[in-house]
């Protein structure tokens, strides 16, 4: 998006980026007992991506997150929904939570709740959302000439209308129907 980059900004972002990401995961994990959780963690990770964006634009974000926002939505929803379905299949109710406790040598008693997986799903969806916003609003200069919202509003119904009409005409014309050979 910009022709000149700021080295100071880039180095600065480089130095904090991973720390912020780790902090976001920290928030995700401790969320059950202290402030944090999937939503907050996802927002922090999103903020890290925003920093990347500010320092190096869309390409820089892409370098660190090589998937589409859709993928994150899909995986996130899948993880969250699976957390719900697994206990239901195992004989409990939908989204019933389970808590496991184990002794880990150095860390002591570690408690793991199945809701953590659910929170991971939320985390991924939120990160996907930030990624989408950056992709949509912050793309390239070419988008500056994009039609603004007002025009899009006017366009919307007209396009849908045209589609529905062609659909109705072609679909209902049963007598004139011909299928090309497969």
């Amino acid at each position, binding site marked *: 998006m910009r022709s000149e980059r700021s080295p100071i900004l880039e180095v600065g972002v480089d130095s904090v980026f991973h720390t912020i990401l780790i902090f976001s995961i920290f928030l995700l994990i401790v969320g059950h007992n202290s402030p944090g959780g999937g939503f907050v963690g996802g927002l922090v990770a999103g903020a890290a991506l925003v920093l990347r964006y500010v320092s190096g634009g869309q390409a820089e974000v892409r370098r660190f997150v090589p998937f589409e926002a859709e993928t994150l939505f899909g995986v996130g929803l899948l993880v969250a929904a699976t957390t719900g379905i697994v206990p239901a299949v195992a004989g409990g109710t939908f989204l019933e939570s389970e808590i496991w406790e184990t002794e880990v040598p150095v860390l002591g008693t570690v408690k793991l*709740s199945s809701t953590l997986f659910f929170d991971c799903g939320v985390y991924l969806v939120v990160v996907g959302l930030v990624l989408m916003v950056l992709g949509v609003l912050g793309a390239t200069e070419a988008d500056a000439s994009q039609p603004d919202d007002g025009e*899009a509003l006017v366009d919307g119904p007209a396009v849908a209308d045209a589609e529905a009409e062609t659909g109705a005409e072609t679909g209902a014309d049963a007598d004139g129907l011909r299928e090309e050979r497969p």
Partner: protein
Amino acid sequence: MLGVLVLHLVVAAVVLALAPTLGRRVMLVAALAPLGTGLWAATQVSAVLDGETVQQSYRWVDQLGLVIDLRLNAFSLVMVSLIAAVGTCVFVYASAYFGDRPDLGRFGAPLVLFAGAMVGLVLADDLLLLFVFWELTSVTSYLLIGFEDEKAAARGAALQAILVTGAGGLVMLAGFVLLGQAAGTWQLSELLADPPTGSTVGVALVLVLVGAFTKSAQVPFHFWLPAAMSAPTPVSAFLHSATMVKAGVYLIAVLAPAFATEPVWRPTVLVVGSATMLLGGYRALRQHDIKLLLAFGTVSQLGFLVILFGIGTPETTFAGIVMLIAHATFKAGLFLVVGIVDHEAHTRDLRRLYGLARAMPYTFVVAAVAAASMAGLPPLLGFIGKESALESLLHVHAGWGPAVLAVVVVGSILTFAYTARFMWGTFATEPTQARTIRSRYAVTHDATAWMVAPAALIAAPALVFGLLPFVLKPLVVDAAASLGEAVEDPSLSLWHGFNAALGLSAIIIGTGVVLFLRRRTVERVQAMPRRSVEAAAGYRQAITTLNDVADRTTGVVQSGSLPVYLGIILMTLVLLPGSALVLAAAWPEELQLASSWLQVVVSVAVVLAAVAAARARRRLVAVLLLGGVGYGVAVLFMVQGAPDLALTQLLVETLAVVIFALVLRHLPDRFEPQTWRIAQVPRLLVAAAVGVFVTAAALVMGNARQGAPISVEHLARALPEGGGKNVVNVILVDFRGFDTLGEITVIAVAALGVLTLVRAGRRSEEEVP
């Protein structure tokens, strides 16, 4: 039984995964699902024939009373066997029908899912569950009709089919709700054992029947079925002749024994069924496209089935089941034959096809058997079905009996005539006609065994059960008994002696032959009315009107002005809860201004930032000041002891400022200067009103609580039940996990919508430089 449904899900996923590597052979993998279902059904036959009803119940969402109740009685066994048998053959056929293309997963997976939904539909013992499967068949049918989505006709037909059947399904849901309320149960078997009565039930039945009519392509909703023929032939054979369109018939068959005596039932069912049977037959006689000919023939036969099952006496139900089996076998077989003809001759036009009997002897034999069954010729199952239907109708002692009998006879004559037209036009060699146009479509060899064998397998029961009807008899007798009363003295055989039914059969065949021999005259008569009334025109008109109304409503409601939208929202807020506040508010006795000095300092800062934001000239400044307001509020949360809320507020505020900044790049640097100061007066008024309202509301609401706050319970249960000390998080992921799941789904779907719109906008921009 649940396992059978899960099998379909698994196979669908596997098909999707393997499709790119296996090409068209992935259809053989898909065939495992119906094959497995068939094997499972076979293991249940002896139990079901012993009069057992296999049941399985799984509590799904207890709080909503949603239960997966499945039951297998003899009638559902008949349906499951049909679905499994036709399904297996169709999948094998499809493995040869398509060319090798990598995207067949898009075809195979919905087809497997459809088979699963259809099995679920006939196993469901719960009205709501039945509805869910019902809609699933509509959705998968939509995907399958529109498979060749580069063709506008296929897309239109798919849309039309889902609009008609989907709307019918919703009407049916309303009927189900009324029925369930009247009966006090959602369970189908309980409902049928003790059917409710009353005027509500009458209304409910009509609504349910509308759903059944749309699904089973009854007049005046029949038009979607012929249009759906733009789907690939395996779909036409499986969904649109053998199974899905039978869903409505199935529902009528299940409900009829319990509700046939309701005053609305028989008039509705018989009038609609009769009209459908006659119209379908008449239109079929007029088609040149053999696939459309068969489609209208299906419409006609569905009308026949609706009549038989709708009457609801044990004899007609018995005959209906025989006809149902007969129709599924001969019609699916014929559709597969049409697919073969299309595949080899590259046309489906009767005026171009000729003499295929010589070039494709095996296909011809299959077609001949199936067609003879359809026309009702002995010694085939179609003949036996028609005989028992006529016989049962002769035994109806009611005023409408002879009229319905006449309709069935006329419909059968038409059936004979269009069957003869189909066979003659496709397979016979007409010496008198010039062959110049036709020779282009000459066929030299028969299709591969992968295509002919499935067609033969599907059509085989027409002959086997025709010659050996006693094999089929116990199952049909039990199936009829499982629907209602058992038939007294059931008989299922080729020869009943010289009786009235045989006489009627002779009349049908004789008149049919005459109609066929005089086909030029028939064609001329049919061509006479220039402007025929078509139901499809009504559909087009309805869609156009709907679009017009939506257009105009949008024009009025969506002015496109952001200030107007905001003004409406804010004034609604002020007027509705605001008036309640003025009328019935209990003002607090004493007010505490602040609990710490920090609060005062931060509040003053927030107010200053807000005022400055309103007065800012540059957009970026305004956005930053707004962000400052948000940060201030976050600090207030912090002071109040809500770290989670504060953290979230802080992060959301940060991202909001960034997003604003991104948007601002597309906007002018400064706000447009307000030249006309009067225009600001209404805005000022709205702003002041909202400010006063929010302040007053905040003061009053803190005192207005009457019940115990839910937070007490949440706080008490968070650690022991949720296992977390952070109550906010426990609520989000555990107590209210369902809500959260819904919320992230909404967010993801909305975001996908935005992405799609933006990308579409970019694409169209690239096309227009």
